[in-house]
């Protein structure tokens, strides 16, 4: 199958701290790819490098067969590279509709003049409704973002990303701070995205159950280096991984 995303020998340093060292990684369409590692292993940095928020020092990133290493974040987003954050990032001072419309702009791509004549598209509503039903919650489109609970905001962020019709979504700890019910809904959403729509997903998550449950492949990072890569079984039996996790526990 055609590769969606490929990292090759990606390096990044912040002063003396190595955040990524010769990282290789591949993600395929319809795959949920876990990215795990102890705290400070450089997972979020990796997502920032892929989405273009931080530039890489060296190495290449290929997305949809195109070298995007030097491409700006917004152009990567326009190519279909979505992203969610550890703490959801919305337009805090706008209502939910505006937030979703912003995502919809990325999907519909209407010109300024067309949007000046008929400003508010309604085309996204069935899609939004469908996804919200999958996530099993509800809201009023005209309400403020602050009317949603934390868990709902995290789910809405994934939904917003799916509304942009992306090829790949980078998901940063979607289940952190969520209860078990909400966590299951997040997993349902991600599975729907990957398995039914063929979207590739890079998933950072601390909950091992969730990772083992829904990932086809896992990359394990420690101090910015890939120490293991493979299926959940391979990774969980890997000596280096056990050492990284248990070794840490011994130190602590």
């Amino acid at each position, binding site marked *: 199958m055609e590769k969606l995303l490929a990292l090759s020998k990606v390096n990044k340093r912040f002063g003396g701290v190595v955040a990524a060292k010769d990282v290789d990684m591949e993600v395929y369409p319809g795959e949920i790819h876990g990215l795990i590692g102890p705290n400070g292993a450089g997972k*979020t940095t990796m997502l920032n490098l892929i989405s273009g*928020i931080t530039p890489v020092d060296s190495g290449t990133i290929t997305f949809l067969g195109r070298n995007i290493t030097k491409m700006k974040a917004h152009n990567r987003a326009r190519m279909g590279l979505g992203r969610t954050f550890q703490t959801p990032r919305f337009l805090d*001072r706008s209502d939910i509709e505006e937030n979703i419309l912003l995502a919809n702009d990325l999907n519909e791509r209407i010109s300024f003049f067309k949007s000046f004549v008929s400003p508010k598209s309604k085309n996204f509503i069935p899609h939004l409704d469908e996804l919200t039903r999958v996530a099993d919650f509800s809201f009023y489109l005209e309400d403020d973002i602050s009317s949603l609970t934390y868990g709902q905001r995290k789910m809405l962020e994934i939904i917003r990303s799916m509304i942009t019709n992306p090829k790949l979504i980078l998901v940063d700890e979607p289940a952190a701070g969520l209860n078990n019910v909400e966590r299951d809904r997040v997993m349902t959403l991600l599975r729907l995205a990957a398995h039914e729509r063929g979207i590739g997903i890079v998933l950072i998550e601390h909950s091992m159950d969730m990772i083992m449950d829904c990932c086809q492949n896992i990359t394990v990072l420690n101090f910015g280096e890939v120490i293991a890569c493979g299926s959940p079984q391979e990774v969980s039996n890997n000596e280096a991984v056990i050492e990284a996790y248990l070794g840490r526990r011994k130190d602590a």
Partner: protein
Amino acid sequence: MNIGLYLQLLVIGLSMGMIYAILAMGIVLLVRAVGVLNFAQGELFMLGAYVCYALTVQLHMPIYVMLIVALLIFVLFGTLFMFAVYWPLRNSKWPATIIISTLGASVVLKEVVKLIWGSVPVVQPPIIKGVLVLWGNVRIEYQYLFIIGIGSLLITAVFLLFDKLFLGRAMQAAAQDSYAAQLLGIPTIVTTALTYIISASLVGVGGWLVSPLFLVSTSLGSFLLKGFAGMVIGGLGDVKGAVIGSLLVGVIESFATLFTATYKDAVVFSVLIIVLIVRPTGFFGQKISEKV
């Protein structure tokens, strides 16, 4: 002859640069601690000049008493200013509110000064009288040398306090981050207030230094813009950069008078804009990136 003229211009430029540097440092301290660009800093500077004028000329205080009283007043100003302009707005959803509020404060301070001292400029006698005659008609007023001396002292003190000593760095960290403040056991309110006090005192003293060279009037507030220019040329949020940038601004401005009197300010701000085009982060600034 020419060398003499250049020397005079250099001394004047450096002493004005010192004044701008004092203003710039005042701003940088606040930018680093609370991330706010204070548009009223120039008015605090002007207020410093007026307070010292009132104490020396109107109340006939000897210089040492005057300095102590003035410092106490500056401390009060700093505290009041923080509680009026920064503290109520620190958690505002609109980042622009604090800037606009400092703008309001600058208008208020200017008007209050006008109500107390009138809008006619007043004259402050030199702190140190006399002229140094180097040769022929190459003369330098002692006041300029005095400014350079005191200015260097203040700059060194601030530099040591905030860039080298643990206390200063801790203070800045604590003002930015309540977690760091907890570790230090100092409430954020104290560190923030201290930063405002030091900043207000600095520019207050700056106002005192510059007052004999110019008429004391509400237009002294516009000195802030040169301080800003120096800070941006030097680098955003860096004390060393701000000082070097400000000295540069002073010297450029002084030498610009050789060619043009009318465009003196335009020359300075054009240099600023050129620097911005070539190096948006200034000469010593590093890119400040947001943690994701």
